[in-house]
Structure formats: C-alpha cells, structure tokens
C-alpha cells in the first residue's frame, strides 16, 4: 500500500502532482469530503436519517458559536431539527454516490456506443448519432420527471431505491451523449492509426481491437470529462431536487439540503443555506481542479 503510493508519487503523474500545490489542496479537500461521506455513520455526530432521533424542538438552531447555538450541533440544525453537519455528511454520501454512479453509467454507455459508432461506422454510426440528437432534445430535468413518472407507475412501492434509480438513470441518460460523441470522434481518428491496422494485420478480432487497442487510447479525454461530470452530476441532482424529483425528503441529499436552504435565503437562518452550498462548491471545485490538473498531467506535451 505504502510502497504503491510511493511508486505512484515517483511516476511522472505523481511527480506533477507533488509539485502542484493546487492539485494537492484539491486532493486533500476531495479526500476529506469523500472520507466524511463514505464513513458518515462513523464520523457524523448524529444520524439525521434515523427519524426517531429527530427532535422538532431542536429545529433551526444556529451554529454552535453563535449566541443560541449548542455544541451538540456544531453547524446548527435545519427545519426538522437535523444536525446540519451530520446531514451534510450523509447528504454528501448520497450526492457522491449518485454523482459517481451516474457518471460511471453514462461513461459505460457512452463509451461503448461511441466506440461502436466510431469503429464500425456506417448505418450504426448514423443511427447512434441521430439517437444522440434525440437525447439532446430532452433536458435532464424533463427526463427525470418522466422517468420518475414511469418508475412510480411501474413500482409504486419502491420509494427510496427508486428515487436513486431515477436520479442516476436520468442523469446518465442525458450524460452519455457527450461521451459517445467524444469517443466516437477520437475513435474515428484512432482507428485510422497504424497501430490499429497493425493489430488487424496480426489477426486480432475487431471487438478485441476495440477493447484492447482503441479504448485505452480514447479514454484520456473521457477520464477528464468524467471528473468534471461528477461535479456537474451533483449539481444536476441538486437541480432535480429543486424541482422535487430528487432523493426522498426524509433522507436529503446535498442537493435537497441546498434546495431546503434555498427557502431560507432571506430568513436570517443563513446556516441552513450557506453550509450545503459551501460543501457543494468545495466538492465541485476540488474535483474540477483535480480534473484540470489531470488533463495537464496526462498530456505528455505539457509535462
């Protein structure tokens, strides 16, 4: 473990990481966020999803350092008496899970379809690209509304799991298009390259060429796009929650927290608004900065 880390730090990418203060800061912030989210049940002072522990009387307490604050709730409480700090951790857990899952899903779908379209071309390409056009016409919000509708009609009793499914599905359904387009573009270039033809001359089967030769070489931009997309997906999730198709209200995601906070903008209970927003910005910023750094680090000409 330590030695792999050491080896990584010694590689070219590792080196550029070590020498970039921005990357290190971003990585530290991202790590803290991910850690707190992943280990929320152990790290968080309260479990805001355990409804039986919520005390309505504790609602809207300000952060601990202000006059009415209580150290029990370091960042104050929201309108249901949830500890904001804990809610943030649990919420980030959902948001990050939704963000990562939807990005993974759209990467899988997008990359596969993009590869197929680019590699085989012809009617498959034309069909897939028109499909992209169709998908482009549906804003993520609408797709979410519609999928939520379908999902609820099909599984009237699967509430929470369904909500996540809806979020992930609708974000990835609109997200795969850009991966498909990017990958298709690079594949068109890549499949003309001689190393692909060399593999064909060797007698490697097309699907295998696609997987082993083309894929690693078109993945660079995809990886960078994906890191940016994680942040965007969290925001999309926030936006969807704003429109009421997000996570169930009893287990609020970061997005839902922001939406709730949105109602408190003018009320003077600023902590309900500010903290979720700050966390979202921190996550998005750190992931984006890491993506920026990675793009530069993976580009041998910039090294």
């Amino acid at each position, binding site marked *: 473990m330590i030695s792999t880390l050491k080896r990584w730090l010694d590689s070219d990418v590792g080196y550029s990481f070590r020498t970039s203060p921005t990357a290190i800061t971003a990585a530290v912030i991202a790590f803290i966020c991910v850690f707190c989210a992943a280990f929320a049940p152990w790290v968080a002072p309260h479990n805001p999803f355990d409804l039986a522990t919520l005390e309505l009387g504790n609602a809207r307490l300000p952060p601990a350092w202000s006059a009415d604050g209580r150290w029990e709730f370091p960042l104050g409480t929201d309108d249901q008496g949830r500890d904001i700090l804990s809610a943030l951790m649990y919420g980030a857990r959902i948001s990050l899970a939704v963000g990562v899952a939807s990005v993974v899903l759209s990467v899988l779908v997008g990359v596969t379809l993009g590869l197929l379209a680019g590699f085989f071309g012809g009617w498959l390409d034309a069909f897939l690209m028109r499909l992209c056009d169709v998908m482009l016409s549906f804003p993520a919000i609408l797709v979410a509304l519609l999928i939520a509708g379908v999902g609820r009609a099909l599984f009237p009793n699967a509430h929470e799991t369904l909500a996540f499914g809806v979020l992930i599905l609708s974000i990835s359904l609109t997200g795969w298009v850009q991966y498909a387009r990017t990958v298709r573009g690079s594949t068109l270039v890549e499949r003309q390259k*001689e190393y692909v*033809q*060399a*593999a064909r001359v*060797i*007698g*490697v089967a097309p699907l295998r060429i696609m997987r082993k030769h083309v894929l690693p*070489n078109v993945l660079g931009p995809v990886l960078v796009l994906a890191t940016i997309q994680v942040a965007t997906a969290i925001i999309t999730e926030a936006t969807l929650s704003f429109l009421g198709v997000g996570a169930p209200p009893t287990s609020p995601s970061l997005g839902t927290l922001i939406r709730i906070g949105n109602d408190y903008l003018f009320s003077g209970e600023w902590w309900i608004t500010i903290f979720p927003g700050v966390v979202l910005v921190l996550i998005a910023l750190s992931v984006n900065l890491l993506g920026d750094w990675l793009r530069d680090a993976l580009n041998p000409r910039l090294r």
Partner: protein
Amino acid sequence: MSLVMEPMSTSAASSATAPLVQAHDLTRTFDVSAPWLNRVLERKPRQLLHAVDGVSFEIQRGQTLALVGESGCGKSTVARLLVGLYAPTRGRFTFDGQDAHAAYATAEGRQLRRRIQMIFQDPYASLNPRWRVADIVAEPLREHGLLRDPQAIKDRVGELLQSVGLSPLDMVKYPHQFSGGQRQRISIARALATHPEFLVCDEPTSALDVSVQAQVLNIMKDLQRQQGLTYLFISHNLAVVRHVSDQVGVMYLGRLVELADKSTLFNTPRHPYTRMLLDAIPKMHDTGRARTPVQGEVPNPLNPPSGCAFHPRCPHANARCKAERPAMQTFHGVRVACHAVEEGRIGV
C-alpha cells in the same frame, strides 16, 4: 550477387513451380463521390479513385520486390491490399497457391495472417503508445496461440528483441522511450514473432538517419538470409532500393509501368518515367552538380490523363500515347508499359 541468391536456391526446390506471392490484376478503387442526394441534386457523376489499377507481379520465395514511385501513386495501397487491410475491387492475390482474400474472410485466415506480416511506414504510429514493448511483441504470439505459458512468451519476446539487436531488458519500456531506429526494430520484431514467410515493408526507413537506416537494413538482410523471408519493399530512396531488392517495380498513378531485375532496371531503365526518376537521384560524390528533376506537375488521380497517364510529362509522347493506354509487355525479360518502348522509339 551470388550470396543473395543462395537462400533462394535452397528453397527453390520446394517452390520451383509457383512463386510464393502472386498478384494478378490487383485493383482497388475508392468511392470518393459526394453523398447520394448531392449527386442527384447537383447532377454529378460518381467519383471513383483508382488508387491501384491492374497491378500484377510475382515474388519468388526468399526474394525482395521493391516498389518505387511518386507520392500517391498507390504503393501503400498495394501493401494494404496484400495484408488484407483493403479488399481488392478486382483481381486476385495468391499466396502459396491459395487465394489470400478468400482465406482472410474465413477461419483459416488467422493462419494466413500468421504467415504474412507488415512493417508500417511510421514506426511510432504503428506501436500502441500505451502498451509495453513486451506486450506489443507478444501480441501476435498470444493472438495466434503459439505460446501460452507466460514465461515461454517472455523468453520468446526476449529472443526476438535480441535478434533485432535490442536488449531483452528493454521489454518493460514503452515505445516513446525508444529512438526512431529502435522503434523500427520493435515493429520488425513483432512482425517476425509468428515466423512469417512474407513481410510487407512500407517505407520502413524513411524517417531514419543514415546510420540507423543502415542498422535496420542490415537486420532485414540478415533475416532474409537466415530464414528465407520474402519481402515487398516500398521506398522513395532508390539507393536503399538498389541495396535491398532483387526486382524493382516502378509505379505511376496506380499502375505498374516497369518491372525488372534490379540491375537491369538501374543500368538500363526503359520507361521514360523510370529514367526521369533515376535522373532525379542526388549523387553523393559529385558535389554541386545539378540534377534534372522530373518535369511537369503530378496529375490528379481523380481525373487521370487519357491514354498513358504519363504522357503530359513525357518527352517521347505522341498522339498514340494520348489516346491509347499501353499494356505491360515483356522486352528482354523486362516488363514495360510504354508505346515508345514498344515501338522502339526509345533505345536501350
């Protein structure tokens, strides 16, 4: 000369009857027309580009055929046709008595692919930049299931690298960590991994300086001597061609215009284009002497000149050259497609 011929004569018994490689009337046309709707609306005809047009040649086992010609005359297309990257529009390519293109499509095609390999023009581009050399060289071994045991594969890769003058220690490096010449050698090692019998080399040394070029050419010659390899060798550099080949084919605008023994071709070129080409070679030891470049403009392959495609640039062209396309004919063991030669207007 006798040294060169020796390995061929050893294998001559096995293939005395048929040459290993036979290209018959190979043709490849590219459809570069505008999309259908455009053609209909703008009343344009279909646009066909005859990249290779009726090329025939044979190579005996253990021999080298060199292809020369201007940029864009179709040399690479011929190479790609032979290894099955393109299917021929017309014509046939027979390898060891077997129709190769029919075979490529079937399961036995794998077997054939093992026997025919190619070295690409650009050594860097033909190596997957994300693979280690060990994997690159081992790919054909794995793909054809020649070896399965990882240790055996490793040994064989080391052996191959050594045979092209690299160290087995280089296995763990990536292509970009090598110099141009070394990369070229890696792609040769890969091409040799399956013990091919026929190697198609597309400008394998164009990017190299003379010292590295010499190293690469020497390796190729050594291999030919040791393993009886057959080469199709494509190059711009006539000095190199002269060094490596047994036979030389001169191409012009998709067609073979002259095909002859190396010494015959260089000593007594017949086709006017061949002559011009030879005149254009810079001479090393007469410093400061001007040479005569080939006159005139390169014709547009989409709209080739009528008759003999070379006639607009040919000093010997007459009306017949403009109207009638010359066919390949054999004169004194040399195959030439030229009316002037046929009519004896050009002396030897």
